[in-house]
């Protein structure tokens, strides 16, 4: 039996904003199950007194002068957008206006 259920695969796909067909769901259920079982190896180690390594380098605050630097020109920032009007990125509608939101 796989370590994760088909329902869990569907739930995680929803969180990850991915749409999977039936074949992909079945494949991922099996592959993720195998990989997660392999990861269970970590439970062999007692880590109750170990601090998690949250950062690659134990640096504290990195400060810089609070002044404006160079930034991208609007034209350059918009250039690669799939849809834009010269001032804004354009996206499909976000709010359902009929409901009077």
């Amino acid at each position, binding site marked *: 039996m796989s370590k*994760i259920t088909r329902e869990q695969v569907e739930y995680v796909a929803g969180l990850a*904003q*991915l749409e999977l067909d039936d074949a992909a769901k079945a494949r991922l259920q099996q592959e993720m199950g195998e990989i997660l079982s392999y*990861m269970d190896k970590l439970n062999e180690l007692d880590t109750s007194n170990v*601090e*998690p390594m949250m*950062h690659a380098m134990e640096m504290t605050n990195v400060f810089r002068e609070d002044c404006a630097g160079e930034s991208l020109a609007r034209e350059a920032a918009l250039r690669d957008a799939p849809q834009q009007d010269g001032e804004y990125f354009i996206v499909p509608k976000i709010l359902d206006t009929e409901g009077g939101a």
Partner: protein
Amino acid sequence: MAAWHEKTAHEISSAVRGKQVSAVEVATSFLDRIAAVDGNVDAYTQVWPEYALAQAQAVDAKIARGEDPGILSGAPIGIKEVICTEQGYTTCSSKILEGYQSPYDATIIKKLAAAGAVFLGKLNMDEFAMGSSTENSAIKTTKNPWNLKCVPGGSSGGSAAAVSADMCTISLGSDTGGSIRQPACLCGCVGVKPTYGRVSRFGLVAFASSLDQIGPFSKDVEDAALALNVLCGKDPMDATSADLPVPDFTQALTGDIKGLRLGMPKQCFTEALGAEMREKVMAAIEVLKKQGAEVVEVSLPALDYALAVYYIICTAEASANLARFDGVRYGFRHPEAKDVREMYVKTKSAAFGPEVQRRIMLGTYVLSSGYYDAYYLKAQKVRRLIKEDFDRAFTQCDAIVTPTSPTPAFEFGSKTADPLEMYLSDIYTIATNLATLPGLSLPCGLCASGLPAGVQFMTKPFDESTLLRVAHCYEKNSGITLGKPPIA
């Protein structure tokens, strides 16, 4: 005399600065070489002949004016698709970034240009640097120059193949779990992953931000030192870059390793290592012993857990980093989306390949409510244990030696059906990234199959000098020259 495309960056730079050859002549030799052999190798995703010649002309013009164009004068360089360049496209070998033109250059691109380098084009990779064979590229399949039926390794497969096939002097790669060192091993070149924080990541498309580092591929250790002299250093645009002095790494190439303590981790020389690779690595250790290194056995008990830790941390970070490809600001947007949610979902589902989707799924799972502590937090704790193992080992030795890869290059398709099997290709390289250490792979002979073998060295963080010194000493005294791969 050998053709210019067979030469190293230090040879070319000194010839160009000494006016023995023009940068244009050198660039032309490399462009001709690409035209002649890349049809077989498929390392390049884009070649920039006009741009390369214009850069070379600028180098020549500086020399004519009596100025010094820099330590890489006229040296032709190839760039991994994951590094942002204003020139050409930056696609990460993914459909989601097809046609993407970065509005800025990565910091390292600016630094290399300022040192007189000439950029030839971009190099193929596994999509978003996820893979160990470059088979996950959405653009093309790069072949190993030593055997066109075999993979070049990955994820920087194009960068390794291009150096190996004399299609550039130095190439740039990125290494999150071995993506520079493993392909360098499989293609028979030198590959360095510097210490985390040593090289600016500004302009490197992020895969796993606590593990990613940029580094060079080269034909010899001297070129690696030269490249690191240019690449390393603090960058205000990357807050994680280290504010530490950068020594002249070429000064480390003394040839003298007398008294150097070389650590052999017993966990890396088990039966999991193929017999032929073991024999080659042991022979490399003998060479260093003869040069005065003292070999000590060290123990890295948490190393057995590195692969599990790595695939939790890298997928978790990737799932967060790749959320930015939402079809709004750049890249592909699915044309049929009716609302914003549908735009996100259809865009990602249509344009991310299977391995990228698998890692986003795994990463989302290990970060999700109810599993965060069991997987992600647990992995961060074991990551500390791995780092502490290395800290302890480095009280007993100055450098650690291991194989780079359990096997030489494998055939196309032989590991694609089983993701875990593919992940095991990086078993010797991933701990370096988890512990933030510098690591280097260099060739240590050819196997009976005619494929290159590689040996890996690691040192303490920010001690790239010792890393290069050991590698250079081996290179000078091994008596091994691979020769040229049997293409064209």
